[in-house]
């Protein structure tokens, strides 16, 4: 008496497989999230991304207003336009979130990241590393006879490029802060 025309045993009709294929142009957005500096607020933000399956490319957080008890979380995320809109709306729902700014769409902004690079080598390699560091305006913040630690600031792309160049020259360790970003011009 089965009135269904669905193939028996088929699982291709799961209730949860309902999403249409959205436009799949994935965009990269930098979000500035001003939050109450409360315990757990970072866990809420990260939990939101994990729980709903959103991407985090980079995340930085620090208190920016001690008196006002505010921290600023800068998140670089990727997703289709619909997902990006959802991410912002979902962030806005968190009670401890005061403001969400999408720096990617709200006009020009500057993005900077700081990287520390430990490069070990001797002779020609060492000279070459130092020469490239100079071109990239990286500072030497530690040196031994066999190694340097370079400090470099710039856009994530610049730091990526520096990493690519250092790799064959004895790159041993990298530490990066993640992106900090501000809109250009007066508020």
């Amino acid at each position, binding site marked *: 008496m089965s009135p269904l025309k669905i193939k028996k045993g*088929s699982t291709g009709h799961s*209730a949860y497989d309902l999403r249409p294929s959205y436009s799949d142009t994935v965009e990269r957005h930098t979000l500035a999230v001003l939050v109450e500096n409360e315990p757990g607020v970072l866990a809420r933000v990260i939990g939101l991304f994990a729980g709903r399956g959103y991407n985090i490319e980079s995340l930085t957080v620090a208190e920016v207003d001690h008196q006002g008890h505010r921290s600023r979380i800068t998140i670089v995320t990727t997703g289709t336009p619909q997902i990006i*809109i*959802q991410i912002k709306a979902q962030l806005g729902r968190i009670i401890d979130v005061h403001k969400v700014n999408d720096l990617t769409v709200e006009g020009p902004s500057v993005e900077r990241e700081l990287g520390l690079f430990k490069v070990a080598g001797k002779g020609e390699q060492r000279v070459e590393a130092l020469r490239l560091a100079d071109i990239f305006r990286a500072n030497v913040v530690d040196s031994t006879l066999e190694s340097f630690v370079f400090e470099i600031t710039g856009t994530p792309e610049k730091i990526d490029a520096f990493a690519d160049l250092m790799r064959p020259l004895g790159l041993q360790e990298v530490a990066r802060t993640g992106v900090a970003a501000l809109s250009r011009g007066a508020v």
Partner: protein
Amino acid sequence: MSKTMTGARMVVQALIDQGVEVVFGYPGGAVLPIYDELFQQNQIKHVLVRHEQAAVHAAEGYARSTGKPGVALVTSGPGATNAVTGLTDALMDSIPIIVLTGQVPTFMIGSDAFQEADTVGITRPCTKHNWLVKDTEKLAATLHEAFHIALSGRPGPVLIDIPKDVQFATGTYTEARQVETHYNPQVKGDLAMITELAKAMETAKRPIFYTGGGVINSGPAASQLLRELVAATGFPITSTLMGLGAYPASGDNWLGMLGMHGLYEANMAMHDCDLMINIGARFDDRITGRIDAFSPRSKKAHIDIDASSINKVVHADFPILGDVAHVLEDLLNVWKARGRKTNTEGLAKWWGQIKEWRAVDCLKFTQQGKVIKPQYALQRLEALTKKHDRYICTEVGQHQMWAAQYLGFEDPNRWMTSGGLGTMGYGFPASIGVQMAHPDALVINVAGEASWLMNMQELGTAMQYRLPVKQFILNNERLGMVRQWQELLHGERYSSSWSESLPDFVKLAEAFGAKGILCSDPDTLDDAIMEMLTHKGPVLFDCLVEKHENCFPMIPSGKPHNEMLLGDASTKDAIQAGGAVLV
């Protein structure tokens, strides 16, 4: 004029100041100071449940049936983890509840102390907001803020975790009016967009109101305005499971519930409309079916208090962020001021089409022979209780869908069901919460035998507090909804979907001192229901029904609305009515 008191006393004081009348809870080591304070006062009643999950569902039932927040109090560790299902349920259905949990003393947090659990960590994703209060000075303010957050914007559950030393320590009590909060969600909708919607309403040929739980949550004014709007425009209206009662089932424009087990006319109208006005619903997958085939030719308005609901699943042509009552008031005013216009010719044709769909009579069934059909049981329950001041709860399964189909709801806050989470075991404790709020009303929980067993221990609570809740079990000796899916989608392989070793429900009731009624004969059903209704105390009604009845109509998962199955109900008539879309 500051008042100094212990943290435990603050908890009770804040509850009193917030107008709380009843707390559902279960004591344990980490909340003893609060229980001690509850003992020494008589403004707040405490209902001792038999399991913390039930405390939270009871608080939900209380909240859904009153519009006021429900409160639950549980101990640390297992008390808190037992509350998780209720919290998630309340989050999914936007129910304002406040859950207070005890916690090990602050100096022991993180040491894996006895009955320590990371309660705020565990409940972060299943609360609207939660707090661990480490300082008695901040406790009262946090409690007041918790009520504010639970109730404002899109309502939801909040949790406050209170370490035992914070309960013992003394601090200054902060009054509610002294508390500042930055959380004040926008309630007024954008007038320009509301005007655009009013214009679209003037010309629409095939409009429909699609309403949801947001109308109920917005308060009685929202339901009132909705009724006015429907009457004034003459548009048809359907509702989600969560929104039943906002518009009366006896109303002329009522199409019945929509969605996976919604009515044929409601789903067909949703599919074919040219203007869909979503009021406080969220395009849930049980409603939309296959998204890319969902109401393909309509412009869609979406009124919602939660920005993240708008454009989440379905693109809104008229997105309106705001509280339903506020937006409906403006919408009515704008539409009236513009001359109360509708496309009368289009509407007349639209209603003509709807009448054809209605003629399919998709809920038709025939009661024959000696076995009670579940639909018949509900039809009789409806007939015999309609005139009562009646509140209906349900568990989850086929019986829940049949209850939504065959019972009529005339007012908001009369229908308590677990929609978003679909929590078996919700209905019985919810009915206890409802009965606490409405001691003289008729409170019925339409249950499946399997769901009901999930929180059956609450029979003790019902007896202790003399709560005359009626447990109306449609006993098909099956996990009926699971069995239905297995029949339709898994080659009739009934893997673990029958209820074996069921208790004798009459004896079970009697073991608790309650009344049990068994009915298996359609001819004695009315008398048995009347016996249930006239009995003064809790009743466990074991209604043995047809074991293999399927719940129709049904939109199979992943199918569009117009590929709805009517099962054996009215297939023949449907084809006569020109519904070539039917199976």
